[in-house]
């Protein structure tokens, strides 16, 4: 069975551009989470979907970040416009219950 997959694995964009990250959770997992790790910091929670609904988006840093999960399957996280401080590794995780399975992450570099 495929695990959580994320695309792209790396992205380098200029400040002010838009980037969209994609996450495909494990099939059947209703819970989908986005986390990120900014250089020098801990992995931080961004938001949580249950199926297509946002359950908790308290970790989203500002309105430049938009997450969607249309149809309750894959999810996208769009950053528009990107700023230098958005650089880091963005992880997606999915779960049925408490045990979360993580993807390999997308390393975003804003220059």
């Amino acid at each position: 069975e495929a695990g959580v997959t994320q695309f792209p694995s790396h992205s380098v964009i200029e400040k002010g551009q838009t980037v969209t990250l994609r996450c495909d959770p494990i099939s059947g997992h209703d819970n989908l989470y986005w986390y990120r790790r900014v250089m020098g910091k801990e992995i931080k929670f961004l938001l949580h979907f249950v199926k297509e609904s946002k359950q908790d988006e308290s970790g989203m840093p500002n309105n430049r970040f938009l997450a969607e999960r249309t149809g309750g399957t894959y999810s996208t996280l769009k950053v528009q416009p990107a700023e230098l401080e958005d650089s880091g590794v963005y992880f997606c995780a999915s779960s049925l219950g408490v045990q979360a399975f993580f993807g390999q992450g997308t390393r975003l570099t804003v220059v």
Partner: protein
Amino acid sequence: GESVGLHLPTLSVQEGDNSIINCAYSNSASDYFIWYKQESGKGPQFIIDIRSNMDKRQGQRVTVLLNKTVKHLSLQIAATQPGDSAVYFCAESLSGGSNYKLTFGKGTLLTVNP
């Protein structure tokens, strides 16, 4: 790798020795705790978990100890191998309700010397 510049706590051990990685968690209401291993270029990989109604749980070569009085969690790795070299994170969560979001610790870089 990803750990460059992060100034993580580090632990260096010889192959075959036992390793102990410690973590202080923040929320006294947390009732579910997990240890993750992250290798360079990969996402966090589940190692072992423990619920707050236990103080010890053993897996294959790993043991997690929970001390709720001082909000401390530890991961013991027996007979550490070079393949155990990675960054180790503890995470806490509230298992009640439907939001199992994780709060991660800073991470510890474990280096195993052959």
